[in-house]
Structure formats: C-alpha cells, structure tokens
C-alpha cells in the first residue's frame, strides 16, 4: 500500500517534469532514425533481417537501461538534495516500501521505452515470423536487467550526498557494462573477456537476443543466461533494501 503511494508519487513526478517527458520523444526519434536507415540506406538495407531485428532490440535495451539508470540515480540522492527526504523518512515507511516506490518510477521508464519500441520492432521483423518470440525475450531479459540495474543504482543513490555523484557512479557502471559487450566478439577470445562476458548482465541480455533472434535457439540454451540475470536482479534488490534500511540520514 505505502510502496504504491510512493510509486504513484514518483510516477506523477516523472510525468510532471520535462526531463522524463523529453525521454520518450528522444527514444522515439532515435528508433525512427535507426529503422529508417535500415530500410532506406544502401549499405544497411543489405543486412540480414535478423541482424536488423537484433540491432533494434539492442538499441531499445541500451536506451531503456540508460533511462532506468538516470531515474534510479536521482531517487534517494535527489530527494536528499531537494530536502524532501527527511519528511518522507519521518513517516512510518520501511525500506522495502521505499525501494518498491522508487523501483516503480525507474521501471516505468523501461516500460515506456519498451512500449514505444514495439511498433518499430514490429516493422523491422515484419514477415520474419519471429516477432513474438523475439519481443518476449527482449522484454523478459531486458526487464530482469532493468530491475537489477534500478535496484543497484537506488542502493548507491541512498548513500551518496549529491545527485551528481550518484549519477556519475551510475553512468560509470552503465558504461562499464555496455561498452565491452558492444565492442564485439574479438574481446571474448581470452579467458578474461569470456569471464566478463559470462557475468556481465548486459552481455547476457545481448547474447540471449543474439541466440534467440539470429541463431533461433530455444529456451534450454538461454536458461543459464536468464539465471545469471535473475541473480543480478535478486542481489540488486537485496543491496537496495540493505542500503535503504534505517540509516538514510546517517
């Protein structure tokens, strides 16, 4: 009940602030440009349709995860900086309710990005027959990644003094997760690269999408990667709960 009250307040705040409202047209324009280039550019249009689907899904996850990261980084640190945290903590609110409320806001950004992306993904996958399976995997795996990223970032946001520090730390982690996974398979030739690839949740989502969309492999192949993502989300929730417990003003 109280988590819902906080969550609704965060959602309304996002709906009333330009930073959140701007994100939706920005995502839409970025996906429009990408899909337009796939369909009209002489070089890109020769790509295999499955590769186009994979790249569109990859762009959606990148955009959605960025929105989640920025929103979650502002959660507690932003309230502290704006002076609204102390009145909130003076109410009979426990850390799991706070976490639930803040997660609602951060995950709403992921949900909005994912919903906006569906028509684009439908256009790119048109005629391939793989839209539903691919969409289900990118929404499912992407959501686990979003939950984990949001919860870890909220946990960090609970213990840093300013939004700037919180945002900086969160963006460093975002870059650390996404950049190596985007740099290609050449990094995965040695054991360090392969180990990082196995534990990196973003790489797990990309490898799942690659496997499902391009290689058309089934659920059994994805099980280990989805387990890794579930562990990332679960440990993130525990971390966020622990960091929000009782001592947010210490």
């Amino acid at each position, binding site marked *: *009940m*109280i988590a819902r*009250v*906080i969550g609704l*307040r965060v959602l*309304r*705040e996002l709906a*009333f*602030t330009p930073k959140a409202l701007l994100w939706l047209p920005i995502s839409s324009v970025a996906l429009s440009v990408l899909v337009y280039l796939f369909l009209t550019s002489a070089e890109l249009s020769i790509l295999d349709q499955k590769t186009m689907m994979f790249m569109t899904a990859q762009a959606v996850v990148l955009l959605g995860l960025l929105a989640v990261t920025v929103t979650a980084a502002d959660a507690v640190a932003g*309230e502290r900086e*704006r*002076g*609204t945290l*102390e*009145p*909130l*903590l*003076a*109410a*009979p*609110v*426990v850390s799991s309710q706070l976490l639930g409320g803040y997660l609602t806001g951060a995950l709403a950004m992921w949900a909005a990005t994912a919903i906006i992306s569906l028509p684009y993904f439908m256009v790119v996958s048109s005629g391939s027959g793989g839209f539903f399976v691919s969409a289900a995997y990118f929404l499912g795996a992407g959501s686990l990644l979003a939950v984990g990223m949001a919860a870890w970032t909220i946990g960090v946001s609970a213990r840093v003094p300013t939004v700037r520090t919180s945002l900086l730390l969160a963006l460093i982690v975002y870059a650390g997760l996404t950049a190596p996974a985007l740099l290609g398979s050449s990094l995965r030739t040695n054991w360090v690269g392969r180990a990082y690839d196995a534990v990196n949740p973003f790489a797990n989502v990309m490898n799942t999408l690659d496997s499902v969309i391009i290689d058309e492999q089934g659920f059994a192949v994805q099980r280990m990667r989805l387990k890794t993502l579930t562990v990332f989300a679960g440990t993130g929730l525990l971390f966020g709960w622990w960091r929000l417990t*009782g*001592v947010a*003003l*210490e």
Partner: protein
Amino acid sequence: MNVIETRGLTKEYRGHTGVADLSVEIRAGEIYGLLGPNGAGKTTTIRLLVGLLRPSGGEARVAGHDVSAEPVAVRSVVGLLPESAGFYGWMTPVEYLCFFADLHAMPRGEAGPRIEGLLERVGLGDRRSSPISTLSRGMRARLGIARAIVHRPRVLFFDEPTLGLDPVGQRDLLRLIQTMNEDEGATIVLSSHALDQVGEVCARVGIMTDGRLVGQGTAVELRRQLRLAPTLDVRVAQTDLACRVAVELGLYARVTVAPPETVVLTPRDHELHPEILVRALVGAGAEVREVVVREPSLEDVFFAVTQPVRSAA
C-alpha cells in the same frame, strides 16, 4: 505523564559526539524549547527522538515506544517539521497533504475533511489548488506545519521553524504553533536559537551546547538555579558621569553602557539600591530620565549557561 523520556542518550559519529548523555523528561501537552547555538546537537537530538538516527548509547522512549527497537511505531505517532524542509513543487497543497495522509494510512473518509480543515486553519484555503512552487516561503512553512500534524500525532518536533521568515511570518507561525498545541493537545518540542521566540511560547526549555544539556527548566527556575540577579537600567543624559558615580558607590559588580543613553548596573548582592543611586546621580548633576528594574531574560540565562561551557571548551 511523560511523553518523552531519555536516559543517557548518546550519538557518536566518527570521532565526533553529536549528543552526549542526554537525559530529559517532557510532559504530555507541554511546549518544550530546545535552545542552543549552531552545532549544539538540537537537530541530532530531534532526529534521534523521531527514529531517523540510531543512538550510539542510552535509551529514549517517545509516546511509550523505544526509538531504537520500534522506530516505525515512533514515526507513526510523531510529526516532524525539519529545518529547511523541501516540498514537491509540482503538487498542490491538497495533493501534498493527501500524500502524507496516505503514508500514514489514514482512511480517505477521515483524511479529506481533516485536510480541508487544516488548510483553512493555516490560511491556505484559497491556495489549495495552486502548485506549491508558487507559494511564498511563509505559506510553505505553514503548509509544512499542516503536513506535520495531518495524521494527528501525539508529539510534534519543530526544528528551527521560523528560519528565513520575516518578523510578521515568524510571529504568525509561533501563534499557529501555540494554537495547534491548544487545539490538538499535542506535545511540542521546538528547537531554535531565537531566544525571544522560544521564551514567548515554551513552558520549559532545555539548553544544549556541544551536544550536552547544560540547563533545563522554566525561565524562572533557571534564573533561580543560576542565581541571576535583576539589573537596574538607568536612562540618563550624561552616561560617563553616571558610570563614574555608580563605580564610586561600590554597590555594583558591573557597570556597562547601552548606547545611546542607558547605563546597566548589575548589583553585588542582589540588592539594587535604586534610591541611593538616584540620589547620588542627582547630587552629581546628572539628568536622570528613567530607572527600570529588569528581570534577567532568557537570553541572559542562555549566555550564563553556555558561556562557561564554551570558555572551558
């Protein structure tokens, strides 16, 4: 009956003591002033009593709940107006109060009339639908009070509530706090370093410095404990002459000039001897305009209590 009881309450940070060995009892329905200079530990004390900080030692009970073991239960029966509290500027006052009523799980049927009534009482009835970002500082302070009491708390903590308000806003807010105390019957702990304001509304005060409670009681009790004598304020045209005469009489421990034309005399033995002084002054040719016996103010008590501690520190 005591609503707040602390015994040896202590809060230590890394290498720094925020509150040291605080023992205090506050009765139900009273307005208790927490006085002290900046950094004295007033805000830390309030945060400990609201359950926002964990004590490093000692114990504290608020409305029967242990602040260490039951912080959520404590927060359900207290209201807090923190120093420089922020607001959700995009909300209207009604939405803002509804949000906090929901956090306290107040039923909608009870919260609606309560919020309407509170907005009228704090003078925001006609601004109930304006975004909070358009309200003045004084209006926001009053909205903060309404927010702190929306759930009918038994104990209210106001941390420097008049900070940043103009004199009229300060007076209005203090009146509002007194009214809330009378109407709601809540116990109020008011932290401030504005001594005149605290003296105006508080029945008892506790004076803190360097994290310690160094004096406690009513203004009269504190004056008695400290053996503070009244002073004689003499308004005279020739202050230099008046000072010389007063010193020569040998009856006064301290003779100071309060410009432009007042001489303040502190007696040696609690006896002011105004007749002897006036006779001597007139005899010396001074033009005496007014003689006033002034009881020590809360400010005098505050300085008498805090300055020895500060000097020792």
